[in-house]
């Protein structure tokens, strides 16, 4: 096969690894990604996995990115094709000038007909069969072995890989040796048979200090612990389960009284999502910080209770790690498809406070903000993450903690205030901010009130009277207005050059948008950028929309849900808003956005763009 000279891109390329799920490839991929990260080189990793336990195709994408881009670029430079079932498709995906690495134990010349890429065959199965015993071990080691091949081709430090293995298998030192042996086999073979390193390779940098590699679910679970949440209730659902797992494992470590062994938290696996949110509401009503994590189907099931919480004014924190819908959809693929349902979930006039974190770092901080907001506003707060943020490791700045932080428990009357009252009324707007005072059970008989989802007066009594009913629901509108000033403000990045074109996005689209803005700028196309971080939208969103002539609304769903929310909840003219919709289930790429913007806005001919750059 004739080799085509590859582009010389040190620390700037994409590796994609195609394997079969359940064969231990996850450990190999994490090892590679961490080894690059520990070499001081910014890196992005994304796992595209099936909703299955073993035997279906799975891919892992590692982007080595000296410019610290956190999104998919949309191209693949090196494909490690370990799954015979997907060889054909995988081979087609490699960009011109790229490489395809495959297990040449079974040569497949017929499959590899492309002349614009270099094929590298390594007899991985043969190497492992000669050196390891047992079918399972051989399969696992074959995957670790390709990590060794890549280490040689990309010039990765074997000592760093050993160090990482030693940390992972601290309690099983034998595994460190066997894994290292497999790595060495691949490494030595590649060194002996190919010119190492490839022109595409890694060279140590110092750009990852002060950073961590963490997924959003772990960060959110950690945030829930730091926020002081004591009751977590949930029903297992992909891709949210690892959030609860993280909360529990952090609590098992940090919330168990060393003397008594008692747990300062309650972790409740509910019988379904209806019960999960019911438990959260019961606990919050009774004064504990309480939360659940779920995904789209769970949001549908919880909706009846969201209405109760909205109307009876009970705090709750809900993490919605969005996945592809509708219905069961594609449980292991990502989308931003719950924006509408979360904003208005439940029958009747209901509106909910929503937060849109863009990365694991924000998952941590927004988790804490969500508990404060829920108790301040006495209402459910939805944190809308997604599978891409929740389940992939992202490079983030170190999480910081201020030991002076105190939770905002909101307007809860303490005993000394209660005893001074003639009588307590639950739903009065004493402070003109739409937020009433509440009391907790177990404090004083004078504080007792009756919580109900049926019509109630501002005094908390049952009613079917038109005026009494309206007084309460109109106050809820005022409360929602107060929320506008409390939810996180948008992040606005002005172009620096005069332009009347804007971009609005939310959540995990952020990385791709920012990279796209860089690329567009290079072509003379400038845009102002606003990233929405909370609902209801703040004044800043209204203002930004008013200032632009044309606004691209970029989101990861079919029906333009963010655009719909903007048209419903701000005074913007509908015709100003252009949708760029990405809803394949893969995380949005920067190239998708560049293409979409260029289709509407002509670039100024500043410099030539190579046609192959945006496949």
């Amino acid at each position, binding site marked *: 096969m004739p080799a085509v000279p590859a582009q010389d891109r040190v620390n700037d390329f994409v590796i994609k690894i195609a394997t079969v799920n359940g064969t231990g490839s996850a450990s190999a991929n994490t090892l590679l990604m961490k080894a690059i990260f520990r070499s001081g080189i910014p890196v992005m990793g994304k796992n595209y996995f099936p909703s299955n336990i073993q035997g279906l195709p799975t891919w892992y994408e590692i982007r080595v990115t000296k410019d610290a881009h956190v999104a998919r670029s949309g191209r693949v430079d090196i494909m490690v094709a370990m799954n015979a079932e997907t060889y054909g498709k995988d081979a087609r995906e490699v960009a011109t000038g790229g490489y395809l690495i495959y297990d040449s134990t079974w040569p497949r010349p017929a499959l590899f007909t492309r002349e614009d890429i270099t094929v590298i065959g390594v007899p991985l199965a043969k190497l492992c069969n000669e050196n390891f015993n047992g079918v399972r071990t051989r399969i696992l080691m074959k995957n670790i072995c390709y990590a060794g091949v890549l280490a040689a081709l990309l010039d990765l430090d074997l000592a760093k890989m050993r160090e990482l293995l030693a940390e992972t298998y601290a309690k099983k030192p034998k595994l460190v040796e066997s894994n290292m042996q497999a790595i060495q086999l691949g490494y030595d073979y590649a060194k002996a048979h190919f010119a190492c390193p490839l022109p595409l390779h890694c060279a140590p940098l110092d750009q990852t200090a002060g950073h*961590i*590699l*963490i997924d959003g679910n*772990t960060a959110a679970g*950690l945030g829930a*612990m*730091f926020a*002081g949440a*004591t*009751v977590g*209730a949930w029903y297992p659902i992909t891709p949210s389960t690892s959030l609860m797992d993280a909360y529990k494992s*952090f609590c098992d470590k*940090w*919330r168990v009284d060393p003397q*008594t062994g*008692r*747990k*300062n938290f*309650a*972790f*409740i696996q509910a*019988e*379904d999502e*209806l*019960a*999960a*949110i*019911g*438990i*959260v*509401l*019961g*606990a*919050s*009503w*009774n*004064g*504990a910080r*309480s939360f659940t994590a779920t995904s789209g189907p769970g949001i549908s099931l919880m909706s*009846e*209770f969201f209405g*109760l919480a909205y109307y009876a004014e009970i705090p709750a924190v809900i993490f919605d790690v969005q996945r592809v819908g509708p219905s069961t959809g594609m449980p292991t693929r990502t989308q931003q498809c719950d924006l509408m349902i979360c904003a208005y979930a439940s029958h009747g006039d209901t509106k909910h406070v929503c937060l849109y974190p863009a990365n694991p770092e924000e998952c941590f901080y927004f988790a804490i903000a969500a508990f404060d907001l829920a108790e301040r506003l006495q209402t459910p707060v939805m944190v809308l993450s997604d599978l891409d943020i929740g389940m992939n490791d992202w490079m983030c700045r170190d*999480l*910081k903690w201020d*030991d002076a932080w105190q*939770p905002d428990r909101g307007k809860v009357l303490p005993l000394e205030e209660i005893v001074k009252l003639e009588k307590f009324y639950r739903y009065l707007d004493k402070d003109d901010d739409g937020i009433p005072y509440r009391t*907790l*059970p*177990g*404090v004083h*008989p004078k*504080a*007792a*009130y*009756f*919580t*109900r*989802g*049926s019509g109630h007066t501002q005094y908390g009594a*049952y009613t079917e009277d038109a005026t009494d009913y309206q007084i309460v629901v109109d106050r809820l509108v005022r409360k929602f207005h107060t929320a506008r000033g409390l939810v996180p403000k948008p992040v606005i990045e002005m172009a620096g050059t005069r332009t009347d074109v804007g971009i609005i996005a939310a959540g995990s689209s952020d990385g791709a948008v920012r990279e796209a803005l860089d690329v567009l700028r290079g072509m003379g196309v400038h845009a102002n950028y606003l990233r929405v971080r909370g609902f209801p939208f703040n004044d800043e969103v209204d203002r930004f929309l008013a200032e632009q002539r044309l606004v691209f609304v970029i989101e990861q769903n079919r029906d333009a849900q963010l655009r719909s929310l903007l048209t419903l909840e701000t005074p913007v003219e509908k015709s100003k808003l252009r949708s760029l919709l990405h809803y394949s289930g893969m995380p949005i790429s920067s190239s998708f956005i560049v293409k979409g913007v260029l289709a509407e806005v002509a670039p100024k001919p500043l410099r030539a763009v190579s046609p192959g750059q945006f496949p």
Partner: protein
Amino acid sequence: MTFIPKPKVRHPSLPRNALGLTRRDYEGVLSTLCAGCGHDSITAALTEAIWGLSLEPQNIAKLSGIGCSSKTTAYFVSGAHGFNSVHGRMPSIAMGASAANRNLAYVGVSGDGDTLSIGLGQFCHAIRRNLNMLYVIENNGVYGLTKGQFSASADIGSRAKKGEENQQPPIDPVLLAMSLGASFVARSFSGDKAQLVPLLQAGLRHRGFALIDVLSPCVTFNDHEGSTKSYAYTREHYEPAVNADFVPFEREIVADYAEGETHPVVMHDGSRILLRKFAKDYDPTDRVAASGYIQERLRQGEYLTGLLYIDETQREFHEVNGTPDAPLNGLHLPALSPGSMGLEKILSRYR
């Protein structure tokens, strides 16, 4: 409903409990149920039971779902917080509330529709967790607020007011709870206050899930001839098996019972219940035998009543979970957050 509000006047001679409170201090707002409703008698029994136990009103939480029964949590102990949630979901609210503060007395009031149809799943799982609460089903075999449909507890052959005959077998909450491993199972009748009040007291003192299924006729939709949940039919067909006399731990047992007929059960707080057996061979501590006996009597159209099963040794939710004695909702930040030093340590795993 009754339209004459009772004046809030306290006669000096009204009896007072250990807290110096009278029964009036444990009343709620005026009932809006139909005159003669069985539920109102249960409300009265609950008031009496709670007053008798001298529970502090603020240390009670009243929880319910939706339906006539669920309205009644407003009709007793005004000094306690109440939560009228959504249909069939009261057990999850109770679970959360109990998780947040294990030290309150949780009184759940539900109906046969709320528990045995829409809420059947949550009911079962509350039993599985042995959630520490009193769970009262006000069972009338009919949907009242929607005007007389059969509920899941209606017996085969029972007739609706308009004559329709129920064809589907009933779900019996007592047998269901027994099969799920419930630690306290009782049945009673709204018209038998003498039996019901001590049962409610024993249920409140039981550490774990205490189910009391109370047959409570609906005077408007299910009190006619042909109904198996009418006052007349219930009076004829309910059969006390084991009555419970609740004895607070500070009081001595003075009642005189015939040898062999009484059986004392010591509750976790030192109080006792004296089981008075009417059926000689009935053993309310033998789950399998008791279930068989209840089933056998049901087949013959008889509702066995009283404290039908009790196990004081079963661990309730908090014992299994290992939560501290102090309520979780009262923990302060130092007990909950690892702080900046802890965070630094945690993050080292992610470098």
